[in-house]
């Protein structure tokens, strides 16, 4: 910041500094007017009345609104611009979803109301489940997992429960590609499995021979992401499925990249036995700064009996939420994965998107998503370095060889992109290439936006090759904060404000 830009307030035009709420409070201010409760009956508190104040700040409504408004202005969202994070599917979040989710007849419902009074809510869950089953070609879906990783764990639990029930409890090994997202091995470990990595081939796909060599009668399942984290469709997927099944194991698919094939391929036709679907990715529910999401997991006929509680069934009279295993004698649920009935608010939003798009719209969305990623790949291949030949699916991968000898790292490149008004692509993932840059534009981006992005990325690449490393190291310059010290944050963790 130059001298001429210094201000008395520390604010710079619309870039407003904002303190913590604890620094803004003033005792006695109030932003919620509540009636006087009258004298408190202490007899009923078991002698446990709070002795000391909580320590929260008091603010009035105008201050609170201003506080959060200012905070929001420091954030980049999909609403701000292109957000090309690989495997995150940052597509537009339709506003209709927000409107219908707020209908009192859907929002103001308690999960434990008598079931006759919530048939419409059960219909929301059942309708979404139906769409997910038809889109994937799978007979059953566990609706309750709250996120993708949660869905992975749910699928793996069903697999473990199946093997245990069939006297195959010795199957404890799970095969996971080296390119897999960290949640895959973490989820496997939570089910008591050991993780055995499989290498990738030169073309970025799973090495089928290496996979076959690792098969044995102690393998519980393979976890595969398809399209994979390099943005490529696993071309040998049918052979992979056959090999896995022959070994008496299951084929779990990480559905993070479902946006590439939704409406075009049913995962049942690929030989997959279980897959979680990230509603907050493929089905456009808002990311909200990190959540909430939902990870309904589709299951094969063999795994279906092990689906967790609760689930919705049709029972002649209407829809019924099954909360106890005994209610359905053939069911052998492996347990319950979370409280209540699943991420209902997220279901509404996903269903609103699905009903809006329809089967034809979803197919067009996957087509445009793949088209956009290939457009980026084709137009940037000469200026960046692509480790794998195209076509790619819905995301394209570059490595940092194009930055060799420039002194500019993937990180520096990303920070420079921020100054240009774009959120960076995913950096350093997947681990199978050096200094990865993984871009997923999604179908929501216009050609004009993509052309602008291409021009900027190309310009930055040229600038790096021309020897402007110092410039990159100083980026970003134009953001509310610059190059925050993550080492300091980890060495001396300060995780809360203290008086």
């Amino acid at each position, binding site marked *: 910041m130059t001298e001429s830009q210094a201000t008395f307030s520390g604010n710079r035009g619309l870039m407003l500094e904002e303190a913590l709420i604890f620094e803004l409070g003033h005792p006695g201010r109030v932003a919620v007017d509540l009636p006087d409760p009258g004298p408190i009956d202490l007899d009923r508190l078991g002698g446990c009345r709070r002795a000391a104040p909580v320590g929260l700040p008091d603010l009035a409504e105008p201050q609170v609104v201003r506080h959060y408004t200012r905070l929001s202005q420091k954030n980049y969202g999909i609403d701000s611009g292109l957000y090309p994070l690989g495997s995150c599917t940052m597509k537009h979040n339709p506003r209709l979803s927000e409107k219908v989710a707020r209908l009192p007849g859907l929002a103001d419902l308690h999960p434990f109301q008598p079931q006759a009074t919530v048939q419409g809510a059960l219909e929301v869950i059942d309708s979404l489940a139906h769409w997910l089953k038809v889109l994937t070609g799978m007979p059953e879906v566990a609706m309750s997992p709250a996120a993708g990783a949660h869905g992975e764990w749910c699928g793996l639990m069903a697999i473990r429960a199946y093997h245990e029930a069939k006297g195959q409890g010795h199957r404890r090994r799970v095969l996971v590609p080296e390119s897999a997202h960290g949640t895959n091995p973490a989820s496997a470990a939570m089910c008591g499995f050991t993780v055995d990595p499989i290498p990738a081939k030169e073309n970025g796909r799973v090495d089928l021979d290496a996979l076959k060599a690792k098969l044995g009668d102690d393998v519980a399942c393979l976890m595969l992401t398809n399209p994979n984290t390099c943005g490529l*469709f696993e071309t040998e997927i049918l052979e992979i499925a056959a090999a896995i099944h022959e070994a008496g194991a299951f084929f779990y698919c990480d559905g993070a990249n479902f946006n590439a094939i939704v409406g075009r391929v049913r995962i049942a036709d690929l030989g997959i036995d279980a897959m979680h679907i990230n509603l907050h990715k493929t089905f456009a529910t808002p990311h909200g700064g990190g959540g909430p999401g939902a990870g309904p997991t589709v299951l094969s006929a063999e795994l279906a009996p092990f689906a967790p509680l609760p689930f919705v069934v049709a029972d002649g009279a209407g829809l019924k939420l099954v909360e106890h295993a005994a209610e359905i004698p053939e069911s052998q649920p492996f347990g319950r994965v979370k409280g209540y009935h699943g991420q209902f608010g997220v279901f509404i939003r996903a269903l609103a998107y699905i009903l809006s798009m329809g089967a034809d719209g979803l197919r067009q969305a996957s087509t445009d998503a793949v088209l956009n990623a290939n457009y980026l790949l084709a137009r940037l291949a000469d200026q960046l370095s692509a480790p794998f030949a195209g076509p790619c699916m819905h995301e394209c991968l570059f490595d940092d060889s194009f930055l060799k000898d420039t002194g500019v790292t993937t990180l520096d490149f990303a920070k420079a992109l921020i100054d240009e008004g774009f959120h960076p692509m995913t950096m350093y993932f997947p681990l199978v290439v050096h200094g990865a840059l993984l871009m997923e534009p999604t179908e929501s981006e216009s050609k004009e936006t993509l052309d602008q992005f291409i021009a900027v990325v190309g310009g930055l690449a040229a600038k790096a090759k021309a020897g402007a490393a110092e410039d990159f190291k100083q980026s970003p310059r134009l953001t509310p904060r610059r190059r925050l010290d993550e080492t300091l944050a980890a060495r001396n963790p300060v995780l809360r404000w203290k008086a």
Partner: protein
Amino acid sequence: MRYLPHTDADRQEMLAAIGAPDAEALFRDVPAAARLTKPLDLPGSQGELEVERAFQGMARKNLSAGCAPFFIGAGIYRHHVPAAVDQLLLRGEFLTAYTPYQPEVSQGTLQALFEFQTQVALLTGMDAANASMYDGATACAEAAVMAARVTKRHKVILSGGLHPHFRATTETVLRYTEITAEVLDPDPLGFEDLIGRIGPDIAGVVVQNPGFFGGIRDLRPLAEACHQAGALLVVAVTDPVSLGLIESPGAMGADIVVAEGQSLGMGMSFGGPGLGLFATRDKYVRQMPGRLAGQTIDVDGRRGFVLTLSTREQHIRREKATSNICTNSGLCALAFSMHLTLLGETGLARLAELNHAKAVRLETKLKRLKGVRVVSQSYFNEFALRLGDEADAAQVVEALAARGILAGVPASRFYPDYPELAPVLLLAATETNTEADIDALVAALEEVL
């Protein structure tokens, strides 16, 4: 199609730049046998009007809480959310932002999470809190796993006063691990003896306060007993508003506190999405699962916030991670924080007092019914009511629903295998209940019983 900007002309231009004859060529890696050639048996796209109509139709088939005297709790509570919360949540920069991995363009989310973590630590009386988990039940399960990790022991005790979903989720998470759970029977009268069960093999004891059936306990003796045995005390809270009036678990000696945060900011939404609160002591911070926002400075020396201690997490530690959790409940945490900021110290205390006062009022009026007895010795805003030895609380609830009253939830819905709980009804009263609501409930119960 309103969400897809490309025209056919755009697509043609782009295909030409790629050098592909058509879009199908881009999918050549998909095995021919797997390509869908016929349309799926699903409806086509619709405009906003039709989609809205569909949802209004589904909404009409429900009896919403605002349309009836309403007394259901059991872990999800109907509180009034100030209008400002929703308006602020709809700001696109909050709604459509991702996890704050690029801190320079995410200071809004990161500062809000730092404030949230502070609020949770203050409420629970603990040193540090994470940036939230999926919900209270999964947070409870993670706490049990953490207790095992910290103590290097393999057994946890689950109190009979723990919410049945928290219990069931914890049991499920532990199922294929080395950790076992000793599960106590449901405990409506608060008679269970936890202290007597703590041995040197116990990693942790998990209790809920107030309990599922109401009861509020001073947990100090239990905390003492746990610590003497080298075990951790995990305390679950289902309505954080209670912490505005009753002593915090931290002040009573808890090592880990987990809670369902739905009560503040979110409305009920049929029980989901949830908000898991998770707090612990400084010495256990590195063993805590989930995301953490931390304070730091930037290159110009200004205070800012980043995600920190990430090396515990799955994207780095993979199979050795503290958990597989990747998503938090970001928007719900923001809503919680906004609501609590609006309430402040003064507002929260008053809200908590109001809730308790309503429940006391309800108990007082219920006293006029013969044969009906509140079994909870103490409570915050929810208690267990015994309807009489031969009563079936489930039938009573159905009968009242037919009269347009949502009269709590029968214990048998959670404990179908405990016939002695058949007459037990859980009733909650919050600031949203009026005197007329209470009178309607009591009158209807009188008719039905």
